[in-house]
């Protein structure tokens, strides 16, 4: 169970997240849509303190953090309860595909090398990249890098997986394979919060879609309702634009 209350983030005088409340049930797959610059990525980044929110309470499973007074331990606990898939993949450039996945398991979770390696190979198998285990990121295509990035996030076994526009930086030819992998993650009822511009994908896998504008959640609901009969005028305009 994820519970967010009053989450607020400002950059200088601009309020990027304005008092956000959000509950996500276990196994729920939530997609965030909205015009650019409305705080979608910031919402994800605040949930694991890549950006530090000014106020609000974040509860993920047994971890509960008051943003205003979060210390180093709170932040680490929150980050360990989440995993993050980046738009630009952000694989560790000095680690092979396999080592990228092992890193969190060994360094953060304290598992043995052998155990971590077995788990990494298992995950690489699921991402269809077992033959690339010993390749460095520089030698992988964008699509392959992002699949390793998702594998790295899967292996952690976090309560909540965060996807920040995972296909936006990809050449069109690689988008399909990454969405396929995300579909498979979704099928396991992994709790996911996804920012994406892939509307048909959102319609297909989301249990609920959030529409954000101006740092607020303007409207939310199951894809069928929200996409076919949008109530808010801003959402109507947005949907017309993205087709």
């Amino acid at each position, binding site marked *: 169970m994820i519970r967010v209350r009053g989450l607020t983030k400002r950059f200088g005088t601009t309020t990027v997240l304005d008092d956000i409340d959000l509950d996500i049930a276990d196994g729920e797959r939530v997609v965030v849509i909205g015009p650019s610059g409305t705080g979608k990525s910031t919402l994800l980044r605040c949930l694991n303190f890549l950006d530090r929110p000014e106020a609000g309470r974040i509860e993920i499973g047994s971890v509960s953090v008051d943003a205003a007074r979060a210390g180093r331990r709170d932040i*680490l606990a929150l980050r360990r309860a989440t995993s993050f898939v980046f738009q630009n993949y952000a694989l560790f*450039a000095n680690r*092979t595909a396999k080592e990228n996945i092992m890193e*969190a398991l060994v*360094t953060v979770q304290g598992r043995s090398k052998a155990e971590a390696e077995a788990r990494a190979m298992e995950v690489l198998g699921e991402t269809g990249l077992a033959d690339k285990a010993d390749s460095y990121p520089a030698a992988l295509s964008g699509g392959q890098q992002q699949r390793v990035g998702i594998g790295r996030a899967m292996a952690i076994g976090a309560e909540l997986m965060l996807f920040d526009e995972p296909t936006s930086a990809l050449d069109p030819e690689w988008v399909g394979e990454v969405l396929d992998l995300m579909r498979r993650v979704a099928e396991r009822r992994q709790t996911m919060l996804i920012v994406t511009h892939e509307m048909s994908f959102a319609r297909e896998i989301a249990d609920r879609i959030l529409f954000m504008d101006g740092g607020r959640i303007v409207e939310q609901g199951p894809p069928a309702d929200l996409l076919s009969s949008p109530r808010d005028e801003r959402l109507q305009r947005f949907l017309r634009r993205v087709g």
Partner: protein
Amino acid sequence: MRALDLDYMLGLVPVILGYVPLTLFMAAVAMVCALILASLLAVERVVRVPGLDWLVILFISFFRGTPLLVQLFLFYYGLPQVVSVLTQINGVTAAIMGLTLHFAAYMAEAIRAAITGVDRSQWEAAQSIGMTQGQMMRRIVLPQAARIAAPTLVNYFIDMIKGTSLAFTLGVTEMMGATQKEASGSFLYFEAFLVVAVIYWIIVEVLSQGQKQLETRLGRAFAR
């Protein structure tokens, strides 16, 4: 103009070569110590530990801003007069200390710049999986910074090898000291110093070969 005394020069080579291990020893120990110290200083400069920052800035400023020879004299001749435990210090130790502190100051700046050169996404990825700051530095950021800083650091190492010759001013008989002694016996200064110059040169050239291998090794992950 007189002819060079080649026989004398050839005879001198094995004598001076006998001191190469001491020179390399001083340079190697100082390099390892300087690298460790410089990494710590550089990380501090990047993360800015409150209350420590000014001290690090002062350290770097002093050891970059004063001549190595002056620093060596300060350690070897000066400090023991003030701090009594240091009276035991020998020339080799003082030279290693001086080289370490002097070059750590330079290398800290090179490493700091390299750390800043590591892509921001690498930091964020490390943070996102819940690494502590120390883990992130040790396992992700510094190894990548090492690749960026390597050519500069090798340059400092070369400079350090040549810098060991200053130990002779602390009464250490290393390559330079030995040459000086030989020359003052034979009065063949040109021959003697030419021989030692060529030996330094060869050592540095051999190391430059190693530099290429080191850069290939560090760049291995980035080859397409």
